[in-house]
């Protein structure tokens, strides 16, 4: 079992005399978040340090209310930082932007738009110089990838929750973000649909290899999807408690993961952390 704390703090690395850009995609340094409340300031996060490498899939678990959403929305730039800093490829986060795609817990599609329009909204915004046809093709490609052929022109509010979240995944990938942030995206789905969507997500991710940070409360989901599982301590003043590397080969199947010798070791590690 490997529970390494990440040590790479270089912004760039050198190999065979050639200098490569940094392997660090996301760098959270001494991050702090304070919510002012009527009863005084509430310090949700303090001294939170985390580095996430390029092309890494990281899942985050921690008790409800510990500050996972807070951390993710700060990375997205949707929630102001109270202290420390967050950088993406060395550039400090100043606000939201399409380099960091977000999939929210609720699918949050625009209900008055069709599936295709929802995906196109982002594509048109991010690729303004592509031709109309190219943009449409991108949107259609990703809808196809999430298995939405035949429902392009359905209004979002006519789709089931699972279908809506598929479109949400297509929308997020279609803008080709550097980092994909997911906040319990499958939390509201039944377990069957959840499994389907995990497969879809990991299949697209295998292809696109973008850095992904996903919050989940499902330990099995965390192991199945991740290269690393990040465990957060309980709040207030939550920080990173432990990081567990999942060394299964990719591409993975649910079956191969469940049958792997290390699976229950990983699982026990996570559950011990959560129960301690």
């Amino acid at each position, binding site marked *: 079992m490997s529970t390494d704390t990440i040590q790479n703090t270089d912004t760039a690395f050198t190999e065979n005399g050639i200098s490569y850009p940094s392997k660090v995609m996301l760098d959270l340094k001494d991050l702090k978040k304070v919510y002012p409340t009527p009863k005084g300031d509430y310090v949700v996060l303090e001294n939170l340090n985390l580095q996430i490498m390029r092309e890494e899939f990281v899942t985050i678990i921690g008790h409800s209310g510990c500050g996972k959403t807070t951390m993710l929305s700060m990375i*997205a730039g949707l929630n102001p930082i109270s202290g420390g800093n967050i950088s993406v490829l060395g550039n400090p986060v100043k606000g939201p932007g399409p380099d960091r795609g977000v999939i929210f817990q609720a699918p949050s599609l*625009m209900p*008055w738009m069709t599936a295709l329009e929802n995906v196109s909204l982002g594509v048109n*915004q991010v690729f303004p110089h592509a031709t109309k046809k190219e943009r449409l093709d991108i949107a259609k490609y990703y809808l196809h990838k999430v298995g939405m052929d035949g429902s392009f022109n359905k209004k979002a509010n006519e789709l089931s929750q699972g279908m809506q979240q598929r479109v949400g995944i297509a929308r997020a990938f279609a803008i080709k973000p550097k980092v994909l942030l997911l906040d319990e995206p499958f939390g509201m789905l039944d377990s069957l649909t959840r499994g389907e969507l995990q497969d879809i997500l990991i299949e697209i991710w295998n292809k696109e290899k973008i850095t992904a940070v996903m919050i989940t409360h499902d330990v099995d989901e965390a192991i199945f999807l991740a290269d690393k599982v990040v465990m957060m301590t309980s709040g207030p003043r939550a920080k990173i408690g432990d990081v567990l590397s999942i060394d299964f080969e990719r591409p993975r199947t649910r079956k191969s993961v469940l049958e792997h010798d290390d699976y229950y070791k990983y699982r026990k590690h996570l559950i011990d952390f959560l129960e301690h």
Partner: protein
Amino acid sequence: MKQSVTLNKVTQLIGMGFFKNIANLFTGKLEKDEVKSILRKTLVPIASILLFIGLWHAGAKALYNKEAEFKIAKALEDQGQAEADALKVCIASGDSSCQPNTLPSPIQVWGSFKSLLKDHNIISADKAAFKEKTAAMNAKRIEQGKDPITYTGRPSFVDQIVRSLKTVFAGFLLALLIAVPLGIFIGLSPTLKSAFNWFIQIFKPVSPVVWYLLVFMIVKTILIDSSEDSSFTISFISVGLCSMWATLVNTAMGVASVDKDYINVAKVLKLGTFQKVFKVILPSSLPLIFTGLKITLSVAWMVLIAIELLAQSPGLGLFVWEEFQNGANDSNAKIIVAMFVIGIIGFLLDRIMLAIQNSVSFVKTDAI
């Protein structure tokens, strides 16, 4: 099959689902529950209308008798037995010169309705004849650069309805053009909100009469050197100002309360202001904007009567007022006719709004 689908759509769009049931009644596709629901949705309203007419008839009769007895008793006291007997005979004969003047019965109202329509036909014919007679002369006058001669006769009841509809439509449009954009700005900007809040709170409860007076003061002076009749302008502006508040408040509320997730999506995509407003904020606040517009239209129609009366604008409001002043034998019945016409038109306007709302908004709203 296709036809019945569109029929269903139309009836649902205007919130009159019971038409569908009637259609099914004839096509014979019925379940036991459906029969029950048809009974509830068609027979019950019909029964309640009949009951209403029955009660109205009985009430009108009781009032009639009370007033007749009072008149006869008074005649007896003031003028003696002979006069009282004569009055009794007169009332019983149905002579219009001595009828008690009270709540008219349903039959009288129906009679008045028919006579108003007849009157309209006569006036229309008159107008057509006038047009024909003056056609040649008007063509010449226009050639000479003079104004054509127009018909200046009395407007018919239908003309007055049309005039009222025009006024309410113009007023509604004015309200929409002011309240929706203003509401969007107020909803978007907390600064504007605090700037306008006191303004809205103070002016919202002001009565139609006061709005009319205010508009009158201003428009009268602006149009002081125009010989045109300003009553239409004054009444539609008053109607608009009076009715726009619901739309203003609802639009601002809708815009301010757009789901945070949608706003976050817009932020992540870095949508520009224009895109954000037209692709996200407006569509998402349409249901509330329409709620406001529906209230605005019904308020506009309601205050219209009072404002037309004050402005002497020849619509339904003035019609009611003139009939009341007139005090002729069938005046009361005509007022009741106007009341029904006003009510039914108000109902239809509401249904039209509902249909428009359901065709443009993503949330389907049922009629109450």
